[in-house]
């Protein structure tokens, strides 16, 4: 379709301006035509119209990606995607109208880095990575895998949250995959494409984690981990090759960041983070990231190791993957609320048992141990009550509580929240961290007072975004002593 001039109308939308001319489509800012018959009112946000570039005579079969995007964007909810407004009939006037999101593409940080020659500080990289991972997880929760994440398709709002664009190569677990064919070919952008995508696997959420890894790598070093391959052989390199460690380009990079980046870029999907929520959780508390040998590497992997993997990779081929939601459900984030006020040993024991049970026997689940303290416990003036020292003390208590939990199988993190409203703090944490199960004590959080006031467990149970397990404490251990003396 030829370029639309400002003022032109299409299906009841008036073009304001062309805001982007890409290789595949033009993007216009639009508003509803004022018409008595259309009955369309202002949606309350600015709108953008995407119109695919098509040569005259192209049929609908040439714009499969556009059709995929129409279907998938329409199905998606939440703040991490532009809101869907309308779609044109593909055989008549193909277009897509969606929310025009005012935010900076991730590319902006890369450009800025190149221009100023100033490396990005690790905290900024972690913040950007966490935002992208949270956005991506919200897609996976809706059974969608993006499959084309790259700095041009990721926007960062002023509040720090991410918005993901361009679902033309995406996969919806509940819809027929219109991009599939019998001879499975690589579908994606070569620079960011995961190894399994190279052999034609579609629908594995961990492919998106690999793409996040490529973006983090570039944010950290200014280099691309696998370059921009132009041939099939070049593309297949990532099936067996580890990229040069980021610290080779940037020796001052903290080990935790290299650890995260290399884990995202592991050739085998199973060696990456099991879900984007896990990746986000790591980036949210870098000081608790479990460091391994790879975090300090500055030399690339030896040719011997690569040669062995290359031989193995020759046999690598397509395998179908289960639904995205099925995969991420197997690696839940369990949050346990650990109280220290008026809590007995028996309470702590029961909570630990319940938390362990919720983690299950399979590896991969993650446990976030959270305690909420009152703002009055810290003080800006007294050294002993400084925020840092109070938090350290509580972290130590949480560490004690968590002893005995299998940290080999399950990643563990500790968090001290400061709030006057315990329930709200717990709910906010659960919501912001994609928590799947909340484990909370019934008695210690005052369930017995339920008839009189809205107690913490009831409020959490009512408003939590996830399943809540209310743990009834065992008999206080002191009762055993009483029995003995009786």
């Amino acid at each position, binding site marked *: 379709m030829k370029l639309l001039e400002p003022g032109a109308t299409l299906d009841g939308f008036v073009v304001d301006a062309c805001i982007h001319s890409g290789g595949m489509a033009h993007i216009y800012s639009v508003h509803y035509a004022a018409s008595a018959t259309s009955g369309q009112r202002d949606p309350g946000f600015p709108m953008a119209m995407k119109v695919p570039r098509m040569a005259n005579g192209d049929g*609908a079969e040439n714009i*499969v990606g556009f*059709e995929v995007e129409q*279907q998938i964007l329409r199905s998606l909810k939440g703040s991490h995607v532009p809101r869907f407004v309308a779609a044109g009939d*593909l*055989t008549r006037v193909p277009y897509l109208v969606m929310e025009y999101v005012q935010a900076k593409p991730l590319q902006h940080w890369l450009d800025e880095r190149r221009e100023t020659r100033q490396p990005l500080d690790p905290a900024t990289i972690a913040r950007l990575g966490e935002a992208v991972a949270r956005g991506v997880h919200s897609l996976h929760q809706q059974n969608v895998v993006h499959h084309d994440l790259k700095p041009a398709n990721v926007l960062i709002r002023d509040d720090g949250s991410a918005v993901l664009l361009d679902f033309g190569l995406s996969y919806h*677990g*509940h*819809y*027929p*995959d*219109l*991009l*599939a*064919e*019998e*001879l499975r070919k690589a579908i994606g952008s070569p620079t960011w494409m995961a190894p399994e995508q190279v052999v034609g696997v579609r629908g594995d959420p961990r492919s998106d984690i690999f793409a996040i890894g490529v973006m983090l790598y570039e944010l950290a070093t200014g280099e691309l981990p696998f370059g921009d391959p132009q041939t099939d052989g070049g593309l297949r390199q990532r099936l067996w090759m580890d990229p040069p460690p980021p610290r080779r380009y940037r020796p001052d990079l903290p080990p935790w960041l290299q650890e995260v980046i290399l884990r995202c870029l592991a050739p085998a999907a199973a060696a990456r983070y099991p879900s984007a929520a896990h990746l986000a959780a790591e980036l949210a508390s870098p000081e608790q990231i479990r460091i391994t040998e790879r975090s300090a590497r500055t030399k690339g992997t030896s040719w011997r190791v690569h040669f062995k993997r290359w031989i193995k990779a020759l046999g690598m081929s397509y395998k179908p993957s289960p639904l995205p939601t099925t995969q991420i459900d197997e690696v839940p984030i369990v949050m346990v609320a650990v109280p220290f006020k008026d809590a007995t040993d028996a309470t702590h024991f029961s909570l630990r048992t319940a938390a362990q049970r919720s983690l299950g026997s399979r590896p991969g689940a993650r446990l976030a141990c959270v305690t909420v303290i009152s703002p009055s416990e810290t003080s800006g003036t007294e050294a002993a009550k400084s925020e840092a020292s109070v938090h350290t003390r509580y972290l130590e208590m949480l560490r004690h509580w968590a002893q005995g939990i299998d940290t080999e199988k399950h990643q563990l993190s500790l968090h001290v929240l400061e709030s006057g409203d315990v329930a709200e703090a717990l709910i906010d944490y659960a919501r912001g961290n994609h928590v799947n199960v909340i484990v909370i004590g019934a008695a210690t959080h005052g369930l017995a007072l339920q008839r009189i006031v809205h107690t913490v467990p009831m409020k959490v149970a009512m408003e939590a975004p996830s399943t809540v397990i209310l743990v009834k404490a065992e008999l206080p251990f002191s009762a055993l002593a009483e029995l003995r003396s009786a």
Partner: protein
Amino acid sequence: MIVRKPNRFCLVKLALLSDIHSNVQAFDACVDDANARGATQFALLGDFVGYGADPSAIVQRVMAMVEQGAWAIKGNHDDMACHVPAQTTVQSRGEMTAAWTHAQLSASELAFLDALPFTHQDGSLLLVHASADSPERWRYVYDSRGAGASLSAAVTISPDIRYVFGGHVHEQTLYYQGRGQDLLQFMPTPGVPIPVSSHRRWVATIGSVGQPRDGRAEAMYAMFDRDASALTFVRVPYDHSAAAAAIRAAGLPDFFADRLARGE
């Protein structure tokens, strides 16, 4: 064959039910569910009888629905009940119940079944019990190849045909055109409205109301929202133990009763 132009101004929610197999409990549950979902038109894709205990009750219901505008086509078991195969030493399971079914049906019910058409076309939609490739030969659409043959035959009937929906295989499967030549197979999740845009061609086997065979007991049917171009495969729980009890009470082999609970 009856050809009707689609009505562009009326919201069409088409309920598709097939392979009812004399199972009144399952049929009533599906019809109720379809009505609750706002069905405006019913399409009954054959195999009304055979296997189950209530052939007459089902044919009476189908006749009443056709009277009210439902579309109905013939299945192989309907044909077999009208023209009972001569007794041979080796009988298929269907043939075992065909003679019994024949005896249960009145002359008018048999005449109704025998007069049913093999296909029904409504604009871009073609309904057929088995495959549009020689409908009277009851070919199975089990894979992409079978679906491709059915679609090719449908397109020769009319190039306008975009949707070929049938039953016969007792499983819910959608076949669609990917980027390659052949059709691709898709296993639907029950209850999810799947976009089936009208510029592509689709073949669906909508499953069996009265005798599911995918290991689950719930009855199967499908809803096609023509205005939204969305196809939903539906599963409906029903009282399968009552249906099984009726089969035993009728003196039919236990096998036909037992399989209902296991969905096989």
